[in-house]
């Protein structure tokens, strides 16, 4: 069934809250203006949305709040270019365009009954947060949930204010930074090294990873060394996108368009695609 309305026409939303996560990353909590739009908004963990600041343009971000918590839609934005700089200039009450949900989602149904290992780096924690909170809100459906989350420095970690909540809801959280910092009592070392030290068992486990490409590369290698099968490894990709609906020709890897066939892929699926990440 095709989607009926104009897929390029954003809904109008309002910024309700802004959280300065790190010096370069802000989280926006957004509600849709149209009456009933928030209640009627259906999406699945891992899906993305396009945010517009008109005059600057539109960019793609994962919806990092879970469908189990729908009082607002949350997006974390790292300031790197024109649109993200414009987004960082917004203040509470400002209006923006929202085209969502777009793309596919994490296989959260198939993951029921399994142990889950999240492996995130930097802003890559954003898509993992959606699935993590969804699982914590449906805690009895999933086995052990552990998280390895790393960033360059303690001040580059996002969502620090809710780590306690994650732990209290039953997640085992291991934090790491690249080198020693004063008052840092977490681990020290790159994410792939911490993964090797933690050495999660692949038995009945799914690993979900997102982070900078270099981290993903070594995390995948590490997971293979721990004898995870390709089907047990899930990642979510980023590409430059414009239309978000599989037409404009930017984000394809061979026959697959990251905006509609992704952003979520298993390592097994990625292996079948041409190597053009």
């Amino acid at each position, binding site marked *: 069934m*095709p*989607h009926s309305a*104009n*897929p*390029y*026409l*954003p809904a*109008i939303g309002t910024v309700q809250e802004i959280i300065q996560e790190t010096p370069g990353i802000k989280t926006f909590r957004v509600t849709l203006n149209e009456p009933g739009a928030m209640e009627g908004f259906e999406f699945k963990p891992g899906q993305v949305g396009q945010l517009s600041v*008109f*005059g*600057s*343009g*539109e*960019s793609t971000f994962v919806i990092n709040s879970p469908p189990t918590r729908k009082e607002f839609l949350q997006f974390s934005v*790292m300031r*790197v*270019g024109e649109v*993200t700089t414009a987004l960082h200039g917004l*203040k509470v*009450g*400002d*209006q*923006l*365009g929202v085209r969502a949900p777009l793309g596919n989602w994490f296989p959260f149904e198939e993951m029921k009954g399994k142990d889950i290992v999240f492996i995130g780096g930097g802003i890559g924690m954003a898509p993992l947060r959606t699935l993590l909170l969804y699982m914590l809100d449906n805690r009895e459906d999933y086995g052990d949930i552990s998280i390895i989350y790393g960033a360059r420095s303690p001040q580059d970690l996002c969502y620090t204010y809710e780590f306690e909540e994650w732990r209290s809801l039953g997640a085992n959280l291991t934090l790491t930074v690249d080198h020693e910092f004063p008052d840092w009592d977490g681990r020290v070392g790159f994410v792939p090294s911490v993964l090797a030290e933690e050495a999660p068992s692949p038995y009945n486990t799914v690993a979900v990873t997102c982070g*900078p*490409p270099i981290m993903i590369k070594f995390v995948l290698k590490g997971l293979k060394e721990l004898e995870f099968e390709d089907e047990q490894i899930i990642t979510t990709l*980023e*590409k*430059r996108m*414009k*239309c978000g*609906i*599989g*037409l*404009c*020709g*930017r*984000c*394809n*890897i*061979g*026959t697959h368009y990251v905006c*509609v066939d992704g952003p979520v892929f298993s390592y097994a699926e990625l292996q079948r695609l*041409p*190597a*053009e*990440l």
Partner: protein
Amino acid sequence: MGEIRFLSEDKLRQWLEELSRDCSVWAPVKEDEAVVFRLFDSTKELSLERQPTAPPKEALFPKSETMLLYRYQKDPEDPGKQSLELKERQPVGRQIVFGARPCGARGFTIFDPVFEEGAYHDPYYQVRREKTSFVTLTCTTPENSCFCHWVGSSPSDPAGSDVLLTPVEGGYALEAVTEKGAQLLDSDLLVEGEAKRQEAEAVKQGASEALGQAPDLSDVPERLFELFEDLDFWERMSAKCISCGACTYLCPTCYCFNISDEPSGLAGKRVRSWDNCMSYLFTLEGSGHNPRPTKAHRLRNRVGHKFSYYPELHQGIFACCGCGRCIKSCPVCVDIREIVMSAKEHADAS
């Protein structure tokens, strides 16, 4: 084919003027050295002798089109607060594309499954597609850059057309391809033309024969997939390329686009414009990473899309209509036929 109608040469302009009374008619006209599609009016001189320099792509897919209008408005009570209003822009009006070659009309049959049949429909394309008819001119003398027969087409291919117009002694033989086309032929300027049928068929056959034998490209999608990681191959194929993008802009089947905003104070428009996959910036990410960093990567994607990815997604159809404009217009003589044949032979050799 159904009924044949005949239009004498001296009534052609009159017929176009009649058609342009209730819709816009795009027709090939000469501008300097180029033949381009322009909206026809009585001042324009038609140029039907040669393949138009550019295909009629803009008739359904404008070089640049406004998709949305936006306006932020300051709250007079509290200037820090702004409201936002969006307006959709939709194309309106019926149009006819007159005098495209079959390759130009066929180009849109490559757009159709992408813009009209996927999970999302493109409303801008869809409205224009519905409101546009194609009166297409059979090619009588293919050029040496033409290779429509390689990709399943021919100089009289009716795919994508509503009327096919074939030059015959003293005028044109017209055949309706669709119901929409039959309606266009309902004019007193046209007469019964059954007597011209044989001559028209001979013209078509002559043009097809002039093209010669086509190679079998059925294994090319698979060969290109195998060559994906052979970057040496793609470096050789793209060595001459200067990434100018002439091939993409003149291609009847290239549809990559960009979306950008054009502000004017607090209001402005969101615009869709043609983009060029041969440009470094096309896939450059905010982080500085680029998945297609060199022209070898980009040419691999361009040729791969046309001869491997698209056919895999759309019943084996190549996203190329064989018009040869990319060959004629390339400033450094990159020839897509050579690339396709090299892929075929390279893989044969390995």
